[in-house]
């Protein structure tokens, strides 16, 4: 049966059948005639001077068509905003895994063989692995030319190796601390984490004799990537075409250019299309993982529990380059003050160069780190003051009319209600379950997340078939965004969702659109798609009115037909016409076929609402092994209309599970700049056996900025998880663990220290 009320229905993903039957084409699946395989040689040293590079033996390998080094490339740097990364290392390597040379060959084996025959002589340089140490005046400057880089958000701070020092705040912090009765300070560490998408980075580039470059790459932000490639390749943007690809998981990690800039030069030098596919060892060693962070928060509090002052500092280890960040710094660091009313606040965030792997974006960049810190700090203050953590939060939570500590003015602040519903569902006011021989604890955490902004161009057409088609250059990263956008078209044109098709265009065929990310899509892409669909509806009605012999204002759309109903003037009049038939009467519009086309571009503004997510965790700890088991988890969300309950819940559950991995087990372990955890046996992500019973609470009734008053849901569930679990662990043990992940071994140490009174 056709479903006409598209919005609010649990529609399954349109691309799902193609994905599970192997029909979907990912970048690594695309093949062109004459295509070669590209491979890169990577530095074994975290910091070294390249004394010499000899490729002559590699060139002699049968089947090898090109071997390139920095000497073969223009002296041009690449970056998503800050252009500080060479395509191939030039004179110096700054992290273990940096690309120093590349080969294109007829088959992967020949390329691999050639890599082994490239002779590189390195002279090791003193490395810096600790971000705090890199900031000290005596540390070597890893980027002496930093001030000349394009894309710095501000002039260099003058602090050694710091390329972005960003501050937020309000009031006068010194005055705030002078007013405080009590002052608390705690420090926290968050680890290096990988996004763990299934599909590794892959690209195929064809540098054509015409001067055009055709690109297939699993990058979710094609127009931004086109700008980056144009800048580094020295080509006008219109000569670069990015083609649609399926993307096998993103979680923030698929926004970086990765091998695409290099792949072009291999194609240019070999005269053939070249494909590069990273393996998962390279992924874990040298992709663009989440930033580790060292955070210190100091708060001044009145005896009644009111926060009056906060000084917070976060140092992010960016690794060797800043090129993988679209904003250079991480905006999410502004969450270090939490969702509390603090009249005097200051946050200092530092982005620091080290000789570690360069970091990029991961689902809600910076927020899981800083919310772990600020929400742990919140609990520790409550504990030290003898207050209930829930009540202490309620004293300080933002309410309507408040300005956030970093100056946001939101309407409809539903922090208190969201926290209350989470606490209620978790049974906060009931005694903790007592299980002999185990330690049990409960913890709460809350954050906000506002929708990101961007631009989007959507085109909707309809031809004689009567099936509307949504045209765009926007790839679904696996979130189901295409399905939700189809639902919007279906709703506006009053047709079943399964009658709405998508045609993915390349970047030359549509104006700029922002890619997937930042909880932006439902809002920004949604408004553009709804705008185009509504324009199409207007045109349909305009075209249908004469066919129905009626004025436009009497004409409407129902169930795939244009309808004129009885009116006071014509009580017996009822006529309908199929929308395809209306389109068939229209002049040629789309590819020479008869039809109607509407296009709409939307540029979103920062919305005047945010959305809150409050979570509660219950844990059991085995004091003899330290094993931490999350026995129950509640996630409460401040939501508007829910466009697709199935996909909405998928984002919530996936977010919680990814947060659980961050909290309990996931860590790219590094030693002297080398990643040790080079497989999914060593880099542990949660399995289904690790997932606790999850209760989702939807605090409905908000009015969001996205179509139908909805809000995005892609990131929020993943943010407070580590904080909620850490607070439950602190409650169970009676002492905190302040560095993630919360392993059995750390729990044992914390229990032992508490018992011995340390």
């Amino acid at each position, binding site marked *: 049966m056709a479903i006409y009320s598209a919005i609010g229905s649990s529609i399954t993903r349109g691309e799902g059948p193609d994905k599970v039957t192997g029909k979907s084409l990912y970048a690594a699946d695309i093949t062109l005639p004459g295509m070669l395989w590209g491979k890169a040689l990577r530095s*074994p040293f975290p910091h070294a001077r390249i004394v010499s590079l000899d490729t002559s033996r590699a060139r002699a390998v049968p089947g090898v068509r090109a071997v390139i080094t920095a000497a073969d490339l223009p002296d041009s740097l690449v970056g998503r905003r800050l252009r500080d990364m060479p395509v191939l290392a030039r004179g110096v390597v700054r992290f273990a895994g940096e690309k120093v040379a590349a080969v294109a060959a007829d088959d992967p*084996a020949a390329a691999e063989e050639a890599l082994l025959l490239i002779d590189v002589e390195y002279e090791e340089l003193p490395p810096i692995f600790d971000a705090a140490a890199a900031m000290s005046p005596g540390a070597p400057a890893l980027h002496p030319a930093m001030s000349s880089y394009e894309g710095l958000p501000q002039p260099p701070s003058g602090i050694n190796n710091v390329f972005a020092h960003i501050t937020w705040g309000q009031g006068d912090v010194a005055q705030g601390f002078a007013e405080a009765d009590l002052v608390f300070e705690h420090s926290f560490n968050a680890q290096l984490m990988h996004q763990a998408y299934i599909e590794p980075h892959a690209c195929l580039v064809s540098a054509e004799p015409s001067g055009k470059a055709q690109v297939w790459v699993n990058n979710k932000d094609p127009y931004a990537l086109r700008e980056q490639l144009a800048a580094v390749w020295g080509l006008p943007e219109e000569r670069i075409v990015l083609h649609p690809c399926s993307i096998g998981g993103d979680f923030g990690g698929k926004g970086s250019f990765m091998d695409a800039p290099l792949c072009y030069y291999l194609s240019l030098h070999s005269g053939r299309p070249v494909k590069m596919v990273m393996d998962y*060892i390279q992924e874990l060693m040298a992709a663009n993982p989440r930033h580790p962070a060292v955070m210190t928060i100091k708060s001044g509090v009145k005896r009644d529990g009111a926060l009056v002052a906060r000084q917070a500092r976060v140092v992010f280890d960016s690794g060797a380059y800043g090129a993988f960040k679209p904003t250079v710094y991480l905006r999410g660091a502004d969450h270090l003050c939490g969702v509390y009313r603090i009249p005097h606040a200051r946050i200092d965030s530092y982005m620091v160069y080290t000789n570690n792997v360069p970091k990029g974006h991961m689902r809600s960049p910076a927020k899981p780190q800083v919310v772990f810190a600020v929400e742990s700090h919140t609990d520790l203050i409550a504990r030290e003051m003898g207050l209930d953590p829930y009540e202490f939060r309620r004293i300080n939570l933002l309410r309507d009319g408040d300005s956030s500590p970093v100056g946001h003015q939101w309407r409809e602040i539903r922090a208190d209600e969201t926290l209350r519903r989470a606490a209620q569902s978790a049974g906060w006011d009931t005694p903790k379950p007592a299980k002999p021989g185990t330690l049990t604890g409960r913890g709460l955490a809350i954050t906000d997340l506002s929708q990101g902004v961007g631009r989007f161009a959507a085109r909707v057409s309809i031809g004689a078939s009567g099936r509307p088609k949504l045209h765009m250059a926007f790839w679904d990263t696996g979130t189901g965004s295409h399905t939700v956008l189809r639902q919007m078209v279906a709703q506006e044109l009053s047709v079943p969702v399964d009658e709405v098709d998508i045609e993915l265009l390349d970047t030359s065929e549509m104006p700029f659109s922002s890619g997937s990310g930042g909880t932006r899509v439902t809002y920004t892409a949604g408004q553009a798609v709804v705008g185009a669909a509504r324009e199409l509806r207007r045109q349909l009605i305009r075209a249908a009115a004469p066919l129905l012999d009626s004025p436009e204002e009497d004409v409407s759309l129902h169930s795939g037909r244009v309808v004129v109903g009885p009116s006071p003037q014509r009580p017996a009049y009822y006529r309908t016409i199929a929308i395809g038939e209306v389109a068939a009467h229209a002049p040629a519009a789309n590819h020479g076929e008869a039809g109607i086309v509407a296009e709409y571009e939307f540029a979103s503004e920062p919305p005047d609402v945010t959305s809150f997510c409050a979570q509660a965790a219950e844990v059991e700890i085995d004091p*003899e*092994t*330290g*094993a931490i088991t999350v026995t129950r988890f509640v996630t409460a969300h401040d939501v508007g209309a829910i466009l697709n309950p199935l996909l909405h819940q998928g984002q919530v559950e996936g977010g919680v599970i990814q947060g659980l991995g961050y909290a*309990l*087990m996931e860590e790219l*372990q590094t*030693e*002297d700049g*080398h990643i*040790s*955890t*080079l*497989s999914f*046996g*060593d880099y*542990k992500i*949660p*399995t*289904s*056996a*690790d997932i606790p019973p999850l209760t989702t609470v939807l605090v409905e009734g908000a009015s969001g900025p996205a179509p139908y008053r909805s809000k995005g849901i892609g990131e929020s569930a993943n943010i407070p998880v580590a904080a909620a679990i850490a607070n439950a662990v602190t409650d169970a043990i009676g002492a905190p663990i302040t560095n993630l992940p919360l*392993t*059995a*071994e750390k729990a*044992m*140490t914390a229990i*032992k220290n508490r018992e011995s009174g340390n």
Partner: protein
Amino acid sequence: MPPFQYIEAESLDDAVGLLAESGAAVVGGGTDLLPQVRDGIVAAERLVGLGAVPGLAEISESGGGLVIGAAATIADVAGHSGVRRRYAALGEAAGGLATPQIRNAGTIGGNLNQRPRCWYYRSPLIPCLKKGGDRCYALAGNTRLLCVTGGDRCYIVHPSDTAVALSALDARLETAGRGGGRELAVGDFFAGPGRDLQRENVLEPGELVVRVILPADAPERSVYLKVRERESGDFALVSVAAALSFDDSGDGGAVIGQARVVLGGVAPVPYRAVEVEEWLVGRLASGVDPAEAAALVLPNATPLPQNGYKIPMARNIVKRALASLLGNE
């Protein structure tokens, strides 16, 4: 992935012949070997499968005990009623290792011959001592998951769960090789780096494990406990297999006859806590304080900088294992 040839041996003699050539290796489910071939850690040009050798994938009764062919899958071992009834520690070890997919593909022979999980060994980039390199990189690096006893220039822990259980059950292994076969106790099969840095057992080149023999007189009560960082697909931080048999004390009570307490995750081989075993034997079961026994675990451990936590963890799970075996007495 480097190219290799895969051959299914038709008989044991055929397998032994195929393995005689250099560059040949036995493969079971391939769950451990193939990633190592892919990453260039193990060079193998010819992989010899045993699944088609008659009888080698079977589990059968023999002389009151059980005989498990080397090509029997871990899932078959875990699900076998005789294993579960009489050799509980083995059933629990097999049923809880890795993931369902790996248990369905992996074999008992392969599990006993797994290579270490030490990530210095597993990294294609690190020329560690076990791979013929110049030194142990772990010693100056991350020692969290390494051994607390038995290290000698190399500090791996043996990764096999079933090896720990089989050692506690006093199982024996039958091998085949060019010089004929032999039978040896599981405890004599594994060997630490002091004997051979590059191997974890005493198999000669070309020799392979063909059967596991579970004795009829294995202790009747056994258990396997494992501490790990996630609930599936993970190796033990520390594990224990404990097995006890009981004799009549003459006055209605029970005296501990045989006692085997073997630890995983603490040493380069399954580690027998002989001090605990000796302390237990001959005691009235009702009078045993598991904590007192467990305090004797790892008396001479020499933990590395980051793995001292394994010692209290080991004592605590030995205590728990003994309590569970004695609790039902």
